[in-house]
């Protein structure tokens, strides 16, 4: 089939005889590697560990929500007297769990897995490149990410614990909270942002400059387009948050007042700062990043879903060009909607009309993309493989998440729904049964590429169905909590009558969350145990895209001779051929 296979070892990054390299020492080959595949795996595994840690934080938090003021059996005592005095969660620990759950899941879990993990591993292979454009900068970006992540987690062990002002870190609260954990959050963010910036530069240059011969822009798999737009968002949206972090560090360490107005009285004492600043300035800078950030969270997932759907419907994606243009438009619009997070801050009618309008406009490309994906099922021959189960479930889940953004994006309805559980349900539907399901699809789909083995499909189906049921059990009731007026970030919702009336939902949600955790056990087992399986055929999914031209796993340098691309990415079920797939890299017509 392909001239680019070598007789490389099956081990990770096995060395390529064609280049006459010396064998690298272990630490250069697997630790400080410059190979995009090793770096991609480093990102993926680290991010999965952080994801599970962030999930654990939430599971702890759910105990307090289901059983407010009750001691947590066994684990409660282990967490120490300051966090859980007598086994009962302290309110400040609850706030730490909330803030760090959000921070870790977004910045240390999803983005590093979706972009650093999947992007790094798959993009060079899908474009026929030997590696990323800047392999050493790639390595540097991982080694900025890891210390940033470790620093974040280490902040739990500082006096006063971790940051506790929400993942949004609004001043003045984040500045009058005197714990070192709050300062460490800012420094860790600087490291994480640096990692993202380095990575995004690499992705853009790689995708533009290193495509194989014949691989024009409109022959790229949608996954690559999605990563391309995502990288522009990371490149241009993160720096304002970095600027804001620098200013908040100055406020905390040098006692400046970028975000503090004059005359604050905290705990009965005059707060000693010059004043003249504005808390809303932080909000603008934060949301200028954080809104594009949510598209960073969803675009790579849409890319994965596109690949899996095309492959498992055995027909080309419907509306490929529409998908590409919609992704670009979505990326562009994501820069001009940010203040819809700030409707309740005293915003005037002019500004709020602008942001409501742009928010309504940005829903259009999302609707188009979802419609294209659903239309892609029509006329297909759908194989319900494990990746396809996750990719299929993504569609209605993303629909719920996206649609429920509408009442939040309209100011009048936002008056009631802002800062309630409705918001939490909305964004979790997009990120959890949305993005995370897509990431699971990607893991099951590309596992054979990375390891040469297949994950156990039966276990995969158990993982899918249990996760699907429990994840809806977690987030669907939250819409009702929001409709009932229940605010978010409440240590004890039963303080309020409208909270007491629906406290049963909190019990249901918490048990669903713990069930969801158990549902991941078959996956974790499967992930590791499958490494001992027998090797499977090359290209077991019978896919058309370029990454399947290289051996599994690919050797260092990926392709011995650079591949050539002859056709569009999803040529499945072409009439008159003996097989139902026609790879991009296959010479024969």
């Amino acid at each position, binding site marked *: 089939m392909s001239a680019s296979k070598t007789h490389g070892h099956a081990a990770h990054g096995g060395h390529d005889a064609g280049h006459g390299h010396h064998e690298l020492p272990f630490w250069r080959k697997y630790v400080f590697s410059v190979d995009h595949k090793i770096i991609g795996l480093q990102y993926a595994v680290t991010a999965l560990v952080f994801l599970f840690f962030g999930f654990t934080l939430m599971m702890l938090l759910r105990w307090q929500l289901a059983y407010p003021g009750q001691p947590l059996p066994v684990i409660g005592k282990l967490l120490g007297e300051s966090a859980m005095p007598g086994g009962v969660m302290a309110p400040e620990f609850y706030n730490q769990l909330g803030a760090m759950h959000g921070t870790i899941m977004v910045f240390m879990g999803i983005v590093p897995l979706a972009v650093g993990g999947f992007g790094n591993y798959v993009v060079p292979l899908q474009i026929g490149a030997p590696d990323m454009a800047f392999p050493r900068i790639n390595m540097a970006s991982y080694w900025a990410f890891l210390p940033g992540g470790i620093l974040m987690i280490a902040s739990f062990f500082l006096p006063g614990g971790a940051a506790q002002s929400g993942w949004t870190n609004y001043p003045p*609260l984040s500045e009058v909270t005197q714990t070192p954990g709050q300062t460490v959050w800012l420094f860790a963010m600087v490291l994480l942002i640096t990692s993202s910036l380095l990575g995004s530069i690499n992705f853009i240059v790689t995708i533009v400059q290193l495509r194989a011969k014949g691989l024009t822009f409109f022959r790229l798999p949608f996954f690559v387009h999605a990563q391309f737009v995502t990288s522009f968002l990371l490149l241009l949206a993160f720096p304002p948050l970095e600027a804001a972090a620098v200013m908040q560090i100055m406020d905390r360490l040098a006692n400046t007042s970028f975000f503090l107005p004059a*005359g604050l009285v905290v705990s009965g004492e005059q707060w000693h700062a010059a004043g003249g600043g504005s808390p809303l300035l932080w909000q603008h800078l934060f949301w200028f990043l954080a809104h594009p950030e949510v598209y960073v969270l969803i675009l790579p997932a849409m890319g994965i879903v596109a690949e899996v759907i095309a492959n498992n419907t055995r027909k080309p994606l419907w509306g490929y060009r529409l998908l590409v243009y919609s992704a670009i438009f979505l990326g562009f619009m994501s820069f001009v909607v940010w203040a819809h997070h700030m409707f309740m801050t005293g915003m005037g*009618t002019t500004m709020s*009309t602008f942001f409501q309008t742009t928010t309504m406009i940005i829903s259009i490309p999302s*609707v188009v993309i979802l419609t294209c994906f659903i239309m892609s099922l029509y006329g297909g021959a759908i194989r319900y493989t494990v990746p396809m189960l996750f990719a299929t479930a993504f569609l209605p889940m993303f629909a719920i998440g996206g649609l429920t953004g509408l009442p939040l994006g309209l*100011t009048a309805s936002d008056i009631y729904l*802002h800062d309630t559980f409705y918001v939490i349900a909305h964004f979790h539907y997009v990120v959890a049964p949305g993005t995370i399901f897509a990431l699971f699809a990607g893991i099951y789909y590309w596992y054979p590429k990375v390891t040469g083995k297949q994950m156990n499909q039966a276990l995969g189906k158990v993982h899918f169905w249990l996760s699907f049921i429990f994840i809806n059990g977690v987030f669907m009731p939250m819409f009702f909590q929001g409709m009932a007026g229940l605010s978010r970030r409440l240590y004890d919702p039963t303080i309020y009558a409208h909270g007491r*009336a629906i406290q049963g939902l909190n019990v249901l949600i918490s048990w669903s969350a713990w069930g969801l955790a158990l549902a991941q056990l078959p996956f974790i087992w499967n992930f590791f145990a499958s490494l001992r399986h027998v090797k499977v055929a090359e290209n077991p999914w019978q896919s058309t895209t370029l990454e399947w031209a290289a051996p599994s796993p690919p050797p260092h340098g990926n392709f011995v001779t650079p591949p050539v691309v002859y056709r569009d990415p999803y040529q499945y079920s072409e009439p008159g051929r003996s097989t139902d797939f026609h790879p991009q890299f296959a010479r024969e017509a």
Partner: protein
Amino acid sequence: MDETKYGYWFPPDVSTHGVQIDQLIDIVHWFMLILFVGWGIFFVYCLIKYRARPGHAATYLPPKAQFTKVIEVSVIVIEVLLLFWFSTPVWFAYKNHPPPEKDALVIKLVAEQFAWDFHYAGKDGKFGRTSEASMSGDNPVGMDPDDPDGKDDIVTINQLHFPVNKPVIVQISSKDVIHSFNIPVLRVKQDAVPGTRIPIWFQATKPGHFELACAQLCGLGHYRMRADVLIDTPEEYAKWAAENAPPPAEPPTSAAPENQQGAPQK
């Protein structure tokens, strides 16, 4: 307080403007439901009809789908309607047409970690001067003790009293961190941002005892930053205002010679 009013959907709406907000939320959700069910039916249809099975192959060429264009255009039209026919007018009416101050009961609010300090102007209708520098545990709103206008002012902590069927304007501020003034049954929510004074208005349609819940994370006590909202009949309100007015000030003792026999002591 009547707990039976609360359940799995909206709490009661006792405001004049709330009905439009509830209506908008309802309409948007019908729109969302129609889209979701529409997509959903087609989605499930495809999942079943186009599943792989022996003898069934995929169709290479894309279907010519006119109806997707129709869907897209309809979505855009409906969103424009939602935006400019419903949401914007409701928001504009609320923001741009507050009641004139002379017709309303004006209350000043200072939010703090973790209490709501309400300041009423009292019988004279004039607020005493306040300043951050004067704020302390005994003087939560920082009243100037020498300002005569402030002598009859009422300050309450976590108790918001006002009469039904009369516009109320609350001027919201915060002395420390961002809080959010949130009364679900009145469908009002407004952030209290330090360094700003933001007015918000509402008018209640029914008396009752309700709750105010802080809606912006403000520290470890955020969850218990609760105030009682007491919507009174006009008589109840007058009674409350009279009972809570501070005692009248002592008449000044004069040092003029003709009063050497001593001014009457209180």
